[in-house]
């Protein structure tokens, strides 16, 4: 296949030679999935067939481009202007996102452009209008950008449902998916509902290594502050450096530390999800214009516009996930055919091992995958309700249409019927309310009982339910500095200081759902803990770490200080090895410690900590608290655990799991997001945004009530299903305990080399058991005594 002459001429004029994968897409006759590394001209490849076809007249919408980011849609509109002008095409290219003004939106509904650039949420909204068949009837092509990112969240599931709808409206549709490097392209193709794979040349091996540091990393912690001089030196040596850090708080602290040693005043920016949109856009613009030498950022820059000038990527802290590391490395792609340069910096001793294991995985081109969970039913509920907004539907034909969406290809009719029942009545426990009676069957077709509900449903579109955020602004000023999670705001007392946007501020008061602060440039901040997502180390990477620890013949790859540390652990207690579950008990300052090296990731260890301490409370061990990391779980108690086997029995833990679900705050958070997506809770109530507190209040009570009176309610089933991975990650506990039946337990007189760093770890969870209640009573008795009221 070759390019049509005029497009070829345009390529030649720009001095470009088409990549083989760009030509392959031109020739593709059916749905395709292109896997190409960053910088491979992916997006242009996706548009080439549309540009070629649009040289002939076409009436109505021809191509729909969908990307996860609004900013990307805006950017593509600009980039398409060049070929459209060069090829002298008489077409309109417009974007439609949440930011598009109402006038433009209305016009697009009457007279759609030839190429429409949008997001999954905006597509869902357009499909909910009665005129959707008219708008999309002429559609020939759909291009889905960054589909690997969409496939990892419910946004992808929603998009695939929308795509199934589009295929019914425009049966001749051809879909092109564009993806970065992924571990299982076939699985992603199946997610698209089946597609031909086009694999681009992955490019040369990246130049990736550990950053040499002056001092060895500390025992615990995640900030990487010890390496700040070394990172500064690396920034100095490069043209433009991206410094990726895992959490927002760490990004803030490291940014401040960098500036403290930035003697030459090199322009260094900061970018993370807690900064306000204006601040972020300013940072992005400065970077695009070439004004920056470095940007400290979090996952907020994982996606988005390619900045060709980045020539060095530094990953600070554990990579946690090989695929994400590779995608981040790909950001340093001055040119497609030159190797990306990246350095990784472990933040503590355990992370040294993880970094080495990750380097080995990258060299072996061995990526990790998250098993795609079963298609979420909350998203399906939203889709059913929105389908009813567009027009009355027949249940069986809708079911068959949904089964054509990749993620839902195995949807059981019973599950579909349960969702339809929920949409129609709210389910058993909620049937009492008229307001939940939303769909009604008339003449064999399901329709909205009250057409006015459509407005409310449309306002609730989307599958992103973020933690409730509170804006931060300067006192007596309208300048917004950013936002923090509500739970963090709740933990503040007036006078507390924290870091935001690189400056220390003092919390003054909460007013109109805004956190008012005063800058305190000279004060040391109270540690900033507004956490971004806590991501667990992937199963593959954990397994690699465990294999490396357990095999002394491979330790040559590790620095000397880490080798010594491993050898010492081996001498004093036992080294964890694959196939065993290693744990140890020791005493320190009158308390008993039980440490379990599960290598199951932070979330699974956190859940295991909650379940185990519950069992220990029942058995009278008097557990007082625990701390979980990606590698281990440390529990302290009054009495020592001398025989861990009965505590670790999976059936006992599973039983405890069910009870624990009833009251767990994490489960309530999962439920809140599911109930919102399924349309039980509303984010927007007639334009007035419900405050986070209100939403949490009613969702917690709903959860408790359903749990007691209707435990098999669809949304509770969905919540339990969601708890098997993600934040609760019960699947990994199950895998850990069933894959490691051999328990190796050592009882040692004092703290072990492996456990020592855990004692310094932040994020300890106290146990509110009978012990804690006694402490509360003791405090009350002391106060009564002091007041002379005994």
């Amino acid at each position, binding site marked *: 296949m070759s390019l049509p002459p005029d497009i070829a001429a345009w390529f030649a004029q720009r001095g470009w030679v088409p990549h083989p994968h760009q030509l392959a897409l031109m020739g593709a006759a059916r749905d395709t999935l292109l896997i190409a590394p960053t910088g491979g001209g992916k997006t242009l490849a996706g548009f080439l067939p549309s540009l070629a076809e649009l040289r002939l007249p076409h009436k109505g919408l021809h191509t729909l481009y969908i990307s996860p980011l609004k900013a990307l849609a805006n950017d593509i509109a600009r980039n398409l202007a060049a070929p459209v002008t060069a090829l002298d095409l008489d077409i309109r290219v417009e974007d439609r996102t949440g930011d598009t003004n109402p006038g433009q939106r209305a016009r697009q509904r009457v007279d759609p452009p030839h190429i429409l650039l949008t997001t999954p949420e905006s597509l869902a909204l357009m499909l909910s209008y009665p005129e959707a068949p008219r708008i999309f009837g002429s559609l020939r092509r759909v291009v889905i950008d960054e589909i690997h990112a969409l496939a990892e969240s419910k946004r992808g599931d929603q998009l695939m449902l929308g795509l199934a709808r589009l295929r019914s409206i425009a049966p001749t549709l051809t879909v092109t998916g564009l993806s970065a490097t992924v571990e299982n392209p076939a699985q992603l193709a199946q997610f698209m509902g089946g597609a031909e794979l086009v694999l681009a040349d992955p490019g040369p091996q990246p130049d990736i290594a550990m950053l040499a540091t002056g001092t060895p990393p500390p025992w615990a912690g995640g900030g990487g502050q010890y390496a700040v001089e070394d990172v500064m030196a690396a920034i100095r040596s490069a043209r433009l450096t991206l410094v990726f850090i895992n959490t927002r708080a760490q990004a803030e602290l490291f940014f401040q530390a960098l500036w403290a040693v930035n003697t030459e005043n090199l322009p260094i920016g900061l970018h993370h999800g807690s900064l306000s949109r204006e601040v972020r856009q300013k940072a992005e613009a400065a970077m695009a214009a070439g004004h920056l030498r470095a940007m400290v950022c979090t996952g907020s820059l994982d996606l988005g516009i390619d900045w060709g000038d980045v020539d060095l990527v530094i990953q600070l802290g554990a990579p946690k996930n090989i695929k994400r590391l590779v995608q981040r490395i790909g950001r340093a792609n001055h040119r497609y055919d030159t190797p990306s340069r990246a350095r990784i910096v472990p933040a503590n001793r355990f992370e040294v091992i993880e970094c080495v294991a990750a380097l080995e995985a990258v060299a072996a081109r061995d990526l990790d995958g998250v098993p795609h969970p079963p298609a979420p039913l909350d998203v399906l509920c939203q889709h059913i309700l929105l389908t009813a907004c567009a027009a009355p539907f027949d249940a069986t034909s809708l079911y068959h249409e949904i089964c054509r969406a990749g993620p839902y290809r195995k949807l059981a009719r019973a599950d579909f019927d349960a969702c339809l029942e929920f949409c129609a009545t709210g389910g058993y*426990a*909620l049937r*009492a*309310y008229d*307001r*939940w009676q939303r769909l009604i069957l008339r003449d064999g077709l399901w329709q909205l009982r009250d057409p006015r509900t459509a407005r409310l449903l449309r306002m609730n579109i989307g599958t992103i339910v973020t933690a409730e955020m509170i804006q931060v602004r300067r006192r007596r000023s309208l300048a917004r500095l950013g936002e923090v999670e509500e739970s963090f705001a709740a933990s503040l007392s007036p006078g507390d200081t924290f870091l935001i946007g690189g400056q220390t501020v003092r919390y003054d008061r909460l007013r109109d759902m805004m956190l008012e602060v005063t800058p305190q440039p000279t004060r040391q901040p109270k540690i900033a803990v507004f956490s971004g997502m806590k991501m667990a180390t992937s199963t593959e990477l954990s397994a690699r770490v465990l294999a490396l620890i357990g095999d002394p013949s491979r330790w040559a790859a590790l620095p000397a200080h880490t080798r010594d540390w491993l050898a010492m652990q081996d001498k004093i207690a036992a080294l964890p090895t694959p196939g065993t579950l290693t744990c140890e008990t020791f005493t320190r300052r009158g308390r008993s410690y039980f440490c379990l090296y599960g290598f199951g990731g932070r979330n699974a260890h956190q859940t295991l900590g909650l379940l185990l301490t519950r069992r220990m409370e029942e058995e009278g061990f008097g557990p007082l608290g625990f701390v979980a990391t990606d590698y281990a779980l440390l529990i302290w108690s009054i009495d020592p655990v001398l025989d861990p086997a009965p505590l670790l029995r999976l059936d006992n833990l599973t039983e405890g799991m069910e009870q624990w679900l009833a009251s767990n705050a994490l489960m309530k958070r999962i439920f809140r997001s599911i109930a919102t997506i399924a349309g039980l809770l509303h984010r927007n109530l007639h334009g007035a945004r419900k405050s986070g507190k*209100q939403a949490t*209040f*009613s969702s917690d*009570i*709903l959860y408790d*009530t*359903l749990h*007691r*009176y209707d435990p098999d309610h669809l949304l509770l089933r969905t919540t339990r299903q969601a708890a098997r991975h993600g934040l609760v990650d019960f699947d990994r506990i199950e895998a850990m305990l069933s894959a490691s039946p051999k328990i190796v337990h050592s009882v040692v007189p004092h703290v072990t080399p492996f456990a020592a760093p855990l004692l310094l770890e932040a994020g300890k969870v106290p146990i509110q058991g009978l012990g804690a*209640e006694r*402490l*509360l*009573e003791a*405090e*009350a*008795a002391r*106060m*009564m005594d*002091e*007041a002379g*009221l005994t």
Partner: protein
Amino acid sequence: MTGYPLTFAGTDFVALPSGALFCPAASALILADLHLGKSERMARRGGALLPPFETRDTLDRLRREIRQTGARQLFLLGDIFDDDHAREALTQDDQDLWNRITSATACICLAGNHDPGARAEAVLGAITLRHIADRGPDISGHYHPKVRLNNVTRKAFLVGRDHLILPAFGTFTGGLDATDTSLTTLVGPGIAILTGPRPFAVPYCQPKGPKR
């Protein structure tokens, strides 16, 4: 029975974990602010749609308290129903349960600001029972006091010289921080009894009380 014994206006009482007050001498159980039908009222007024089970929960707990204390008299100090309409909107089951409870014991329902209309006051020895504190010594409800200790917030009884304020007994009821000046000026120095698995007291509004 785990409770916190106290003496108020010369009469012995026990503050119960649930937020009910028991007077052994009179075999009387005293509660305030049941707010039955709150979810129904909120739904009716276009607020949050809470499932309608909290009424049953409150009634179940009330029945349990009566059984456990063996009380022969029941005083409900107002705001029993979230409003007059809520009383009629009770489900048949809840209505039956309510009737059984109120007919099995000598039950005196006082008026509250949410459900005016019933009698306003009752007397227990030298103490007046009413919804909102007035001339002491009296026992009342209305404020739903809560106390915070070591980052834990609990519904609480406030016991001053002239006034004893009960926590709300209802399931979905918010609360007013006991350090609010409307409560400190009303109750004055005394103790606060925190509800929980085992109720316990902390100093309340003491002039030289320790900082919280």
